[in-house]
Every structure is written in C-alpha cells, then in structure tokens.
C-alpha cells in the first residue's frame, strides 16, 4: 500500500479521535509534506461536523418512553397471565399490523384486568413506577429543591461534576422541558445551602437554577 492510500485509510480515525498513537505519529508526519492528504483531512472534518450536529427537530423522549413502557407492561401482563413467552416486538409495517394490533390490545386488556383482580386480592406491594403526580424520589417530599436547566452541550460527566461541586443530587428530571429537580446530597438539610446556588449561578454550563417547589 503506498503512502497516500495508507494515509487515506487512516484519516477517518484521526478525524474521530480513535486512531492508534503509532499511526497518528506516522500520519502527522505524512500530512506535513502532503497537501492532497491535508485537503482530504479538511474534507473529512467537514463531513464529521455535519454528521455530529444535533438535530433541529424537537424530541419528546419522555412521551416515547411512556409508549414503550406501556408495551412492556402489556407484554408482562400477558406473560404472567398465561405463561406465554414474552411477545416479540412488532416488526410488520403499520398497515399490516393494524388487525393484529387490535387483537393484541384486546388480549392485553383482558390479561391486565385479570392480573389486576389477582393483584387487588393479594394486596400488592407499592408500584415500582411513579406517575407524574407522585412526588419525586429523594430526601422526603417536603425538602428543599433547586430547579435547574443545563446547557444543551453539557455532557453527563459535566452534570456529575457540577452536582459534586454544589453538593446536590438529581431527584428527578429532566422534564420534557429539560428541567432537573435537584436536592441536597445531605438528606437532613433543611434548606439549599446558598453556596450551592452560588456555584450553580457561576457555572456557565448552567442556564437556569433557582429554588423551587416540587
């Protein structure tokens, strides 16, 4: 393989940061003397930037999650009712599915009713899920909270760092609007420490942070 071909093959991994150190050293020295490969590097960086851009459409992951969770609960109800194997996810097209879907809904409904009857009779443990009207988990339902919105570019590692610095933890969120409910790490705290709020306000990665009600 000639030098240009080798460089050409390695460029994507330099562009995405996954190149081996030894290959990177060789490629850098090749690029120093090769305008053609430098131009290709620039082209690939543009392609990467275009692909890695966040979508402009507004997503509603919580609503989508609720739909999936309903499907999981329905399948569990069927499985526990008649010991049938867990249904595979529907794979057919929307139009092909309609008939089967109606049967599935009827079956799921009947199964759910049966399961509920048994469950009521047995006086079940508290549900393992929360509804939107339930208080978020955390340090008690009446404790102090901070409502916060992080910058769109903030990563999970940043959030962890911001929370560690301010002595707070996430009790719930993000909401559909991207709002997190934060509570003091110290479960017994009677109020949000002013220094915690000050840290959030001073951090450029935090777009909004104010004390709020659950």
């Amino acid at each position, binding site marked *: 393989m000639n030098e240009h071909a080798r460089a*050409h*093959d390695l460029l*994507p*991994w330099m*562009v*995405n*940061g*996954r190149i081996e150190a030894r290959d990177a050293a060789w490629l850098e020295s090749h690029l120093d*003397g*090769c*305008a*053609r*490969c*430098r*131009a*290709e590097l*620039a*082209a*690939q960086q*543009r*392609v*990467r*930037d*275009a*692909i*890695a*851009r*966040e*979508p402009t*459409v507004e*997503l509603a*992951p*919580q609503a*989508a*999650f609720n*739909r*999936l*969770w309903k*499907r*999981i609960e329905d399948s569990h109800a069927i499985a526990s009712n008649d010991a049938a194997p*867990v249904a595979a*996810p*529907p*794979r*057919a*097209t929307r139009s092909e599915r309609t008939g089967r879907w109606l049967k599935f809904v009827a079956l799921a409904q009947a199964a759910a009713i049966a399961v509920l009857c048994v469950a009521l009779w047995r006086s079940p443990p508290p549900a*393992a*899920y929360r509804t939107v009207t339930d208080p978020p*988990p955390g340090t008690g339902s009446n404790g102090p909270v901070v409502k916060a919105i992080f910058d769109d*570019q903030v*990563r*999970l*590692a940043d959030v962890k760092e911001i929370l560690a610095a301010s002595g707070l933890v996430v009790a719930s969120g*993000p909401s559909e609007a991207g709002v997190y409910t934060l509570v003091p790490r110290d479960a017994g705290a009677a109020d949000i420490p002013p220094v915690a709020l000050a840290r959030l306000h001073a951090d450029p990665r935090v777009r909004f942070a104010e004390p709020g009600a659950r």
Partner: protein
Amino acid sequence: MAAATTQQQQARDEGDRRLLARVAGGDREAFRELYIVYHRRLARFLTRLTRRYEIAEEIINDTLWVVWRKAGDFRGDSRVSTWIMGIAYRRALKALRARSHALAEAVPIENEPLVAPDELGAAETSEWILLAMRHLPTEQRLALEFAYGYGHSCEEIALIMACPVNTVKTRLFHARAKLRDLLPGLAGGGGEASSGANT
C-alpha cells in the same frame, strides 16, 4: 461538535454499564435514564435515515425493548453503546426493508456534482453534506454515521454491522469517494487541493 474523546467515551461507558446492570434487575428508573440518553443519540441518525420521526421512534422503541429484555445477557465484551448501536442497526435495516427501502434510498444515484466547487459556501456546507449523504447506499452512509456521528472505532463498527473490518474500510472508502464526486468543493481551498494532487 467534535467527536467525544476516548476518555469521555470511557466515562460514558462506565455510566452506561451501571445503568444497564440496574436495568437487568428490572429497575424502571434506570431504564428510563438509559432510554432518554439513547433516544437522543439514536434519533439523530435514525431521523436522518428514515426522514420520518415516527418511524425513527418505532425503531428506537424496538431497540430499547430488546435492551430491556436482554440487559442481563450483556457480557461486557464491547462498550454498551456498541451493543445498543448494533441492535439499532439491525432494527433499522429491517424497518427499511419492510418499507422496500422507499424511505432510505429515494434519491437516485447520480454522478453529477450537486453543487459546483465555488458555490459551496462555508455557511451551508453541512446542509450540502447531509443532502449528499442521502445519495449513498445505506450501508456506506451508516458506516459514516457510526464513525463520525458517534466516534466508533473501525473494529467497533465491524461489530455493530456484523461484518469484517475490511468491509468497514471499503464502505468508508466508497462513501468518501461518492461524497467527493457529489461535492467537488468539499475539501475547501480548491487551489491547495489541486496543486497538491501530484505530491
């Protein structure tokens, strides 16, 4: 936005593994957290691929359904994101096949440039690139998405696409050549690119 560094990816994977272990134990809140993270990640390429959000969501939910059921089977041989992306890849191909590729390959393959080199302004470069990508065969396009959109290594992409490493290299090679044909000005500084062609 540049691809995440290896360190950031490792930190992300550790977080994913902790969540997945809780999901394997039936923890709904952990599943919700994992879902929110991967909904965002998967929606980006699936919405582009299918061009319809409701189909993208269907694929995402099929994918995460499998994750919920198979979380306990994950052995940690790869990153969690590689595993989930592999599931999403197979689901996406099935969804596209069920629709006779009408969505993914609606744009005929042509060899004419989409835009002349001197018309490729910096401001709209990204739009042109995303448009040009719609002219690529699905496999080539997805190889680019996995490499540049998600920062996967060549070996990880081979795992995701269940193909040899050399096939990934070939797909990327052809994808890049096609983009170059469609967007002759992609490298920018046309003078430098052409003058360097013989170096």
